[in-house]
Structures are given as structure tokens and as C-alpha cells.
């Protein structure tokens, strides 16, 4: 009995000491004074130095938490029990959150740095007038490829992926809209097509790519391309940047027929506690110098025009990640197709995958 009591005491004392250490660490990492805000972001999607800088400048303590998918983030916010003040969902998630009334309107008068943002990225279909969201990073969908593993193919057109020499070399991202979108784009149709004939034609065309497809996977694409286990991948520009970071041989191209333009945006959830602090944080992130430092760290494309002027011209002049006006014209943002239409996309994607297995 004695050792049981002694062991319990030891555990309680240890936990007490650890809690004390945690509280010291938390104090040292926060400035205090101006209250706290909780930021909910993708993992590894901000330069941590900027958080400390914001805390110093504003006196607001930032509690930082990460999520791995838009769906996980929405569920957490929808369930309540949390008070996230700023979150960074993708554009299609914003439409859904708007419909389910999870968003707090943003007072644009407090966001004075909004003028830094390229007008091309403002007032888009998913959020007219930027009532609820401010762009954070953006990118495209395209083809990442490793020229050292290929004999001289280039990827100016989506049709290049159908090249018979690429047998068992192409990885596709496991996402219905990207893959069906590739089929639609390669035929010159809109990514947001609701036309049953167009969708049928795109799916039938996709099925003929079968012999070239090595795998249909998710985030593992980055590792596989880095390790040169595959030569070509349909992927997001952000993932392509992650690949190039490690394996410099890899190149990225956005086919000329057009492609998708995606955004991650800053929003204020309905459940936010410190709405004023959230506005300050968003405004801080839009500051030219801050956005430039963040874009350097994260490696995605920034919508911040003023920041681009401060960045290495070699980065901002890279047409693979900052496409020319000409190509931009042909990029489309995903529209919210509604549940029914999304179901059709998913079914067609499933049909395509089932066809693969034959």
C-alpha cells in the first residue's frame, strides 16, 4: 500500500513540475496584455518568427493550432466548443462555410493593408466583395515532372500526359475535381462544367490514360517525386514547390489549355472571441514585408503585390508559380457546384478509378 501511495505522489509531483514548466514556456513565448487570439492554420504554413513579431507589436498573445484538411477544420468550427479567431481554409470551403453561416463578416476598413493585394485576386466568385475572406496564398494545378527521368518531353498541353512513352510514369492526385478537371481542360471545356455530355466525354477520355498511370495518391506524391520513384505528376503548384525545394531537377508547368486557380484565405469564424485581434492579425499578415518573409518561408505564391516587389525577382519572375497575365486569363476558380453536381463528379471519378483496375 505504501508504495502505491508513494508512486501516486511521485506521478502527481512530476505532473505538477511539468505543468509549471509549460506555464513558464507559455509565458516566455507570449507578450501578454492585449488578450489572445487563436489561429487555426494548415501545418507548416506560416513563418513562426512572424507570430512572435506580431505578438511583440500588438501585445496580443497568439495561440496557434494546425489542421490537415478543410473538412477537419470545418467540423471543429461547426461543432463549437472552440473559439478560433482566424482560420485559413481553401476557397471551396469558404462557400460551404458561408452557406452554413460559420463566418463572421470582415470589416474591410480595419484591413488597411488590403491595398497591397493584387486586384486580380479580389472580389472573386466564391466571395464577392471580399465580405468574408482575404487571400493568403494562391496557386494553380499543373504537371510536375522530372526531365532527368524523361527523354525530352515537355508538358505544354494536357494531352502530353497521354503520350504512349510515359507508360507507368504518371501519378495523379487523388481528388475528383482535379482529375475530372484535367479531362475537361484537355478538351477545352470549363472546369466547372455542368454539362452531362461534356463530363461523359471527359471521363471517357480520361479512361484512355490508364496505361500511363502509376498511382492515384494524396500527399505521398511529394515524397515519391522527390525520391524519383515517378517522373510525372498531376499536382498543385504548392506541392510542386515542395518537391523542387528538395529535388532541384523537378520542373513544373501549367498547360496552355488552362487550369484551376486555387486560394487559401484568411477568415474569421462565427465562433471567434477576439474579433478585433483577428482583424489586427489579418492586417498584419498583409503588410508588404511580413507577406514577403512569409512567402519566402512557405514557398507558395503570394497575392500581395507590394510584397512581390520586396522579394527576390528570380522567385516572383518565375512564370511557373507566378503565371503571366496571358495564362491567368485561362485559369478558372472552382465554383461551388452544389451537392448534387459534386456527387456526379465523384461518381465519374470513381468510374475512372474502377476502370483503372482492369
Amino acid at each position, binding site marked *: 500500500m505504501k508504495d502505491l501511495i508513494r508512486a501516486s505522489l511521485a506521478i502527481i509531483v512530476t505532473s505538477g513540475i*511539468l505543468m509549471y514548466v509549460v506555464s513558464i514556456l507559455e509565458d516566455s513565448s507570449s507578450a501578454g496584455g492585449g488578450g489572445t487570439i487563436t489561429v487555426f492554420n494548415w501545418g507548416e504554413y506560416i513563418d513562426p518568427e512572424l507570430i512572435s513579431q506580431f505578438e511583440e507589436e500588438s501585445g496580443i498573445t497568439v495561440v496557434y493550432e494546425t489542421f490537415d484538411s478543410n473538412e477537419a477544420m470545418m467540423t471543429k468550427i461547426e461543432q463549437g466548443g472552440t473559439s478560433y479567431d482566424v482560420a485559413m481554409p481553401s476557397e471551396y470551403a469558404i462557400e460551404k462555410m458561408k452557406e452554413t453561416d460559420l463566418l463572421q463578416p470582415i470589416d474591410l476598413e480595419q484591413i488597411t493593408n488590403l491595398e497591397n493585394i493584387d486586384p486580380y485576386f479580389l472580389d472573386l466568385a466564391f466571395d464577392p466583395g471580399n465580405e468574408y475572406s482575404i487571400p493568403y496564398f494562391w496557386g494553380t494545378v499543373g504537371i510536375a515532372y522530372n526531365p532527368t527521368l524523361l527523354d525530352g518531353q515537355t508538358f505544354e498541353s494536357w494531352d502530353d500526359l497521354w503520350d504512349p512513352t510515359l507508360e507507368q510514369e504518371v501519378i495523379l492526385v487523388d481528388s475528383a475535381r482535379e482529375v475530372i478537371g484535367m479531362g475537361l481542360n484537355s478538351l477545352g471545356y470549363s472546369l466547372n462544367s455542368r454539362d452531362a455530355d461534356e463530363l461523359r466525354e471527359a471521363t471517357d477520355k480520361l479512361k484512355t490514360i490508364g496505361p500511363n498511370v502509376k498511382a492515384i495518391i494524396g500527399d505521398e506524391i511529394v515524397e515519391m517525386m522527390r525520391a524519383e520513384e515517378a517522373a510525372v505528376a498531376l499536382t498543385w503548384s504548392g506541392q510542386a514547390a515542395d518537391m523542387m525545394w528538395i529535388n532541384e531537377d523537378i520542373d513544373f508547368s501549367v498547360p496552355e489549355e488552362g487550369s484551376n486557380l486555387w486560394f487559401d484565405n484568411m477568415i474569421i469564424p462565427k465562433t471567434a472571441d477576439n474579433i478585433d485581434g483577428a482583424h489586427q492579425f489579418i492586417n498584419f499578415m498583409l503588410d508588404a514585408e511580413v507577406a514577403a518573409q512569409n512567402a519566402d518561408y512557405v514557398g507558395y505564391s503570394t497575392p500581395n503585390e507590394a510584397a512581390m516587389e520586396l522579394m527576390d525577382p528570380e522567385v516572383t519572375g518565375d512564370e511557373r508559380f507566378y503565371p503571366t497575365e496571358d495564362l491567368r486569363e485561362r485559369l478558372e476558380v472552382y465554383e461551388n457546384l452544389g451537392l448534387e453536381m459534386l456527387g456526379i463528379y465523384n461518381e465519374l471519378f470513381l468510374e475512372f478509378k474502377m476502370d483503372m483496375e482492369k
Partner: protein
Amino acid sequence: MEKLSKMGRVYLAIVFLILYAPIFYLIFYSFNSGGTMSSFEGFTLEHYAAVFNDTRLIIIVLNTVIVALLSALISTAIGVLGAIGIVFIRNRKMRNAVLSLNTILIVSPDVIIGASFLILFTMVGVKLGFASVLISHIAFSIPIVVIMVLPKLMEMSDSLIDAATDLGASKRDILTRVILPYIKPGIFAGFFLALTYSLDDFAVTFFVTGNGFATLSVEIYSMARAGITLTINALSALIFLVTLGLVLGYYFFSNRARMTIRPPGGGN
């Protein structure tokens, strides 16, 4: 015991090699200056420095340990009392029913337990964070403790309690001086199992973390989109070393204790 045959030893070596290879692979690359797990370029300790510079990561590790220790302790206390209660249920049917209820909790998928806790907490109005994680860890650890303690209780002869009663022991004395010492090994086993369950639980914790509170497994999972850095390798190596040290220390002390306490020829 018979000595292991040569074949047996080779087999054992292969099994352990397979079990430990991934861990050593991971530790090996934690010293890689190349930045990925694909090719080893040079030796560096920078990833270890990064672990200690990342205050948020350290807070998360410490929180994970605190939750594990406290939840294991509390669930052990509740679980032991529960197990004793179950054993003393006279009605056989009733006892089996209670035991089955306990087993169902172990068998049911973590995802369901996690989701139901999330719904419960938000309904009742518990703020997601330290408390919600602790409560749910305690809840899923209790059945494990009960299962670990029960066999010891079952094997204890009723005559021990009868003898104690005959000798005038009060109910309290029976509990603290007869039952608890007898089932002590089961209690410790239950505690350590609960500790491990809590340390590596992902599914339940994933649902009930929030407001900036996270445990290590949840944090590493959400790094997946941008790629897991070698900092995590370094951290895993450190945790592996600490665990190894604890296990070795445990054996060292328990061996020594056995040698000094046991008088020659005396039983337990």
C-alpha cells in the same frame, strides 16, 4: 528452461530486426544534413537544435506527457476500484453483463469514442482543450485497467479475506492490507498500459483537441500537407532514448529491490 536452439535464436534476431529497423532508420536520418529521408548527405545535429528551439513543440510534448501521467493515474484509481466491485458482484449474470459492457468499450473503434466525446463535450459546453483531452483519455483507459487487474483479483483466494475477517480486520484494512498488496503487480501493469495508450492515442484525441491545445500525435498528423520535417525524426529519437532509459531504469531498480528485500529462502 531449455536453451534456445540455433534456429530459434536466428528467428528471434530476425523478428527483432524487423521490429526495430523502422525506428533505427528514422533515428539514422535525424542526423542527415540533406533535409529529407531519401539520401544521407552528411552528419548534423541541427535538427536536434531545432527541437529545443521550437517552444511550441516542446510545450506539446510536455502536455502529451502530463495528460498521459494524470489520465493513467486517475484511470488506474477508478479502474482498480471498479474491478474490485465487479469481482464482488454475487449474481453471476449481472457480473458477466458488467464485464461485457467493459469489454465493449475496449473493442469499439476509437473513432466512434472520439466522435461521441466531441458531441458530448460540445453539448454540455465543456471547452475543448486540456480538460476534454484528459477526461476522454481517462475514459478510454479505465476499461484497460479493469482488464489488467481482474485476473489478479480472480486468482486471489477467498480464504485470504475470510482469514483477515476472522482476525478482526475492518473492511478498510482488508482493502488496503490484503487486497491491494496482492493485486499490486496488476495495478502497475494497468497503469503502464494506460500510460502507453494515452501517449500514442490519435483517433480520440484528434476529435477533442482544440483552442490551441494539441498532443504530439495530432500535431505531427497535421504537418502532413507541407511534409514532415526531420525535426520530428530528431524528436522521435529523443523520445525513444528517454523511453529506453526508463525501461532500463525500471528493470535495474526492480532487480535490485528484489535482491535486497527478499530474505534468503523466504517467499513473497
